[in-house]
């Protein structure tokens, strides 16, 4: 356990002491957020609520995927630069290095999500449910984030180098865009809707939305919050159940 904390600290220090990383990531995220909010948003019809209230849960939940690319790249870099070899040669639990990476990147995700939420409130986003539901929504995003970090850590281990990890990270684009995150699924062609409705990100986005839209949510989503939360949770557990053992096995084998 203490080994996990020590390695987590190292990963966090790397972010904290490389401020240009954080500044660039925040700028980029803010820019995209404002583009959706003020440019694309005007053309997207969301019945019964302002687009900004529709967008924010989707934007924050998709942030899980985009920040995950960073975790994959960081893992691949550690592998490439021999850092993982050093850690593997030390008398510490095999899982601690990977767990540390997942924890560190989840904390960074939480920070990024908090910043986005701050900006969101500044440009007109409002909670329609209780503040407690809002906090629950935030917690849910972080929990999903932790599950997804394992998928990205696994990806990084298999990629082996930063460029390959970056390239493999492209897989997040269809999941981010063919979902309910930015636009209502009903506006997509039928065959795309099949994918969009059943993939994990849509359940995550709609779970968050159900908690932030209050009374609007039932009309928009057609199901109560619990429906989406359970399905998103099943996905999250399934993602960890598959990627954690695969990652640990790969890490062991070297």
């Amino acid at each position, binding site marked *: 356990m203490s080994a996990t904390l020590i390695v987590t600290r190292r990963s966090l220090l790397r972010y904290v002491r490389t401020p240009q990383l954080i500044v660039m990531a925040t700028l980029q995220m803010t820019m995209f957020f404002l583009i959706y909010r003020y440019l694309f948003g005007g053309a997207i019809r969301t019945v019964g609520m302002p687009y900004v209230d529709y967008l924010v849960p989707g934007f924050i939940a998709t942030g899980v995927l985009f920040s995950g690319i960073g975790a994959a790249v960081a893992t691949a870099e550690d592998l490439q630069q*021999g850092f993982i*070899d050093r*850690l*593997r*040669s030390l008398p*510490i639990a095999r899982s601690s290095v990977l767990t540390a990476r997942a924890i560190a990147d989840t904390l960074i995700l939480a920070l990024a999500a908090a910043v986005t939420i701050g900006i969101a409130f500044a440009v007109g986003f409002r909670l329609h449910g209780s503040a407690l539901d809002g906090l629950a929504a935030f917690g849910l995003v972080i929990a999903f984030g932790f599950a997804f970090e394992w998928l990205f850590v696994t990806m990084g281990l298999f990629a082996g180098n930063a460029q390959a990890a970056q390239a493999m990270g492209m897989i997040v684009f269809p999941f981010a865009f063919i979902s309910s995150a930015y636009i209502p699924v009903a506006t997509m062609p039928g065959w795309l809707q099949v994918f969009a409705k059943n993939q994990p990100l849509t359940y995550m986005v709609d779970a968050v939305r159900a908690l932030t839209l209050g009374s609007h949510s039932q009309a928009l989503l057609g199901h109560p919050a619990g429906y989406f939360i359970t399905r998103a949770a099943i996905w999250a557990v399934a993602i960890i159940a598959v990627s954690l053992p695969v990652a640990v096995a790969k890490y062991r084998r070297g």
Partner: protein
Amino acid sequence: MTMAIEAQGLVKRYGKTRALDGLDVAAERGQVVAVLGPNGAGKTTFVRAVATLLRLDAGMLRVVGHDVAADPGAVRRLIGLAGQFAAVEPAMTGRENLEMVARLFGLNRAAARRNAQAVLEQLGLLEDADRLARTYSGGMRRRLDLGASLVGAPRLLLLDEPTTGLDPRSRIELWRAIHNLVEAGTDVLLTTQYLDEADHLANQIVIIDHGRAVATGTPAQLKERIGGSVIELHVREERDLDRVAALLGRSVQIDESSRRVSVRVDSGREQLTSVLRFLDAAGIELEDISLRQPNLDEVFLALTSVDAAVGATAA
């Protein structure tokens, strides 16, 4: 006495290539063992096997009496590894890097701090200890990496090509650091492509090629086996190359692009004089002629079968 390393018949396959192909190594305690060989000979694979980083396909490998496959945990408590890359965290200071590794090695906070301080002193990094490692020069990073491998006070230090890519001064500094460690009683296994490095640091040299040991011995023993010295001639005209080769007879090596001919001789000085006399009589003009110790290429020529040696290229 327990051996530091006992390796018998190690085999490691990557697809169709055999990185290790029946490697035997026996290293006694209290020694510096250098594994010498060209790129792709299996040096790194061997170190990784000793460091418990890979699973062998066959063979028996014991480190200070512990079987690597059966009890890797025990081995990890005894070793310190410095790989080919300086695996230090650039966003942490030198001191923080060392304290982190010491803590991971299982030392408590106070002991970690003490050891880190001692290592910083030992490696001459004290002045820069509280600067981020990303501001370090390449040589300093390597020294810090070396420090990380020994901050847990391991019984056996594993150094994989510790000086590859370093400038000559940093190389000598690192040699000195390794030398001091050995004096303090740490066992060391190091790999290198450089004969002079093995010569300088090791009590015992294992020369490997194509995943097998081709020769083992002290530096003096090996030199005796390789024997003699090398006369190298640099001719002015390319057309003279064949005539020179014919004059020198038997085992000459010709490099046409640089117009060089080299030949191994037993008693260098006398033969150098007679070679000069021959060439003068034949009217062959030289750019340069030199007498030197055999380099790694020639060591391989001497110690491995002819066709195996032709394929072996060394830096």
